[in-house]
């Protein structure tokens, strides 16, 4: 009986031999560690003294938090960590909220009660991602300059919203498409209003997908450098610009730069770790399902 009910096990592509399987597992571990190594090394360097970092690679050293306190200290005239972090935080937060506010109704119109020609509209959204940002950067710069928006957070909020919107619509559509039509029909028959359907039927099913989509938008907006450095060189700079400014033209800066990089990178790396599974399903299924 137990034999009969055992589900067919997923078999890997490469060999079934025990020894081969163990070797492959070992290989996978080695490759995984190698891929992670640069980041591990960066983190290690962040805890070194400048003298230790600026020498031939050292694994044993006396760890110190000094670099972290140095780079987060603010000095007049320079962009400080607190400022950059605050700017990034608000820009990313507001643009992500805007993206979701615009994308959720759009995804609804593409998936749950599809409008006519929804496929064309979805294509239009994706196709805007094919337009390289250099195709629009000069007018955007001129418009921002004429509206006195150069060096403000507003201009980055607007542009990051536009940058992430197509991706969000694309992913959310696939999550909304997973809601069984029968469930919605049943709710309708039971006399459930539209807000009620949204709250009680649709949202519980798509909520994890919404979270993953929002996180992906956060990652892309947080990491964005080109627009930040071109449109916002002084006033309201973000974390990537701050990291870039830690590169000094004289003296030793490697350990300090590493500490700054760790501070700038890990918030979104951790966010990505949390959302990894759903994020990729949304990306891939956007096309497949």
């Amino acid at each position: 009986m137990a034999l009969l009910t055992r589900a067919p096990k997923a078999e890997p592509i490469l060999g079934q031999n025990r020894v081969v399987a163990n070797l492959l597992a070992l290989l996978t571990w080695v490759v995984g560690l190698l891929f992670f190594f640069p980041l591990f090394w960066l983190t290690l360097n962040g805890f070194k003294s400048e003298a230790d970092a600026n020498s031939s690679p050292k694994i044993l050293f006396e760890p110190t938090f000094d670099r972290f306190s140095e780079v987060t200290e603010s000095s007049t005239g320079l962009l400080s960590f607190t400022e950059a972090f605050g700017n990034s935080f608000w820009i990313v937060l507001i643009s992500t909220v805007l993206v979701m506010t615009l994308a959720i109704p759009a995804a609804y119109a593409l998936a749950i009660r599809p409008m006519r020609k929804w496929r064309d509209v979805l294509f239009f959204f994706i196709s805007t991602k094919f337009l390289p940002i250099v195709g629009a950067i000069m007018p955007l710069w001129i418009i921002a300059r004429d509206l006195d928006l150069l060096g403000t957070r507003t201009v980055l909020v607007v542009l990051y919203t536009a940058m992430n919107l197509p991706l969000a619509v694309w992913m959310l559509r696939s999550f909304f498409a997973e809601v069984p039509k029968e469930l919605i029909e049943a709710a309708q028959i039971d006399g459930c209003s539209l807000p009620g359907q949204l709250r009680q039927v649709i949202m519980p099913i798509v909520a994890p997908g919404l979270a993953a989509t929002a996180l992906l938008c956060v990652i892309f907006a947080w990491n964005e450098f080109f627009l930040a450095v071109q449109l916002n060189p002084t006033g309201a700079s973000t974390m990537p610009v701050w990291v870039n400014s830690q590169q000094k033209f004289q003296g030793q800066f490697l350990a300090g730069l590493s500490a700054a990089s760790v501070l700038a990178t890990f918030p979104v790396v951790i966010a990505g770790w949390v959302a990894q599974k759903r994020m990729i399903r949304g990306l891939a299924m956007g096309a497949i399902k």
Partner: protein
Amino acid sequence: MSNAVVDREQESRVAEVKRLERREGWKRRLPILPALLFTIVVTQIPFLFTLFYSLTEWRIDKPDPETGEVPRPFIGGENYGSLWGDKFFRDAAWVSVQMTVMAVLFSLIVGTLLAILLDRKFFGQGFVRTLLITPFLVMPVVAGFMWKTQMFSSTFGVINWVIELFGFGPTEFATKYPLASVVVVLVWQWSPFMMLIVLAGLQGQDQSVLEAARVDGATSFGIFRQITFPQLRPFLELGTLLGAIYLIQVYDHIEVIVGGQPGAKNLPFYIAQRSIGGGNRFGLASSYSIIVVIASIIIANIGLRVLSNLLEDDS
């Protein structure tokens, strides 16, 4: 007479139905309009400006000494005419092509191999997957710095430290092989992305089909070639498409790894340099932008055809 009345009644009923249908159509369209309008205003309209700028000779750093205004004479297609005579433009275009093709291709190959390795049960599978996707999450500016100063560097770089153990002399990779250096970092960041997409494809396979093939005596390689690969194809195509969209626009890595040095400036970098980055030649740089956009549209058309095949059975 009575017939006419019936006809009219029917007509009005048909009109009523049409009116309701139209109202329903608008009701369905309404939720998408804010997103649609926002996207058009922010992404499409500036592009039309670029098109217009590209037909002018416009240097924002050369105002008329008397009026203080910046002249913007209309010169038609002249900017485009001089494009191919511009060696720097040709170089940047060639770098763009090489960089995009190499980065997409290698990421796809490495990503697929990683996915195949990961697609099996072993101790710590989830942990290793997390290690492997991390490069994709790293801020590009940081990725560039990290590789340049701590991996490639001839004095403090880990890679040089390793090859010196084997008796090779130190090499300043980022200066000596700028293009290859940038591509290495891009592949490091994008193979995890490809891996995840291919993994989604591998794990979506119908296990009973694989089981049947195995019972029929198919070899592992045969199964991969005849069953798995055809099923993976749409995922590989999707990875190529999404990867190309992003990789054609690479800027951050070049700025950080190569900076002002020649050797690995792609078109987006060159355009920014010639216009808002201090070159101030808005007219000319706009014509470069238009060329990039046209090239992208060609790629996009191929890509969209692929996508529409993918969406076909989903209506």
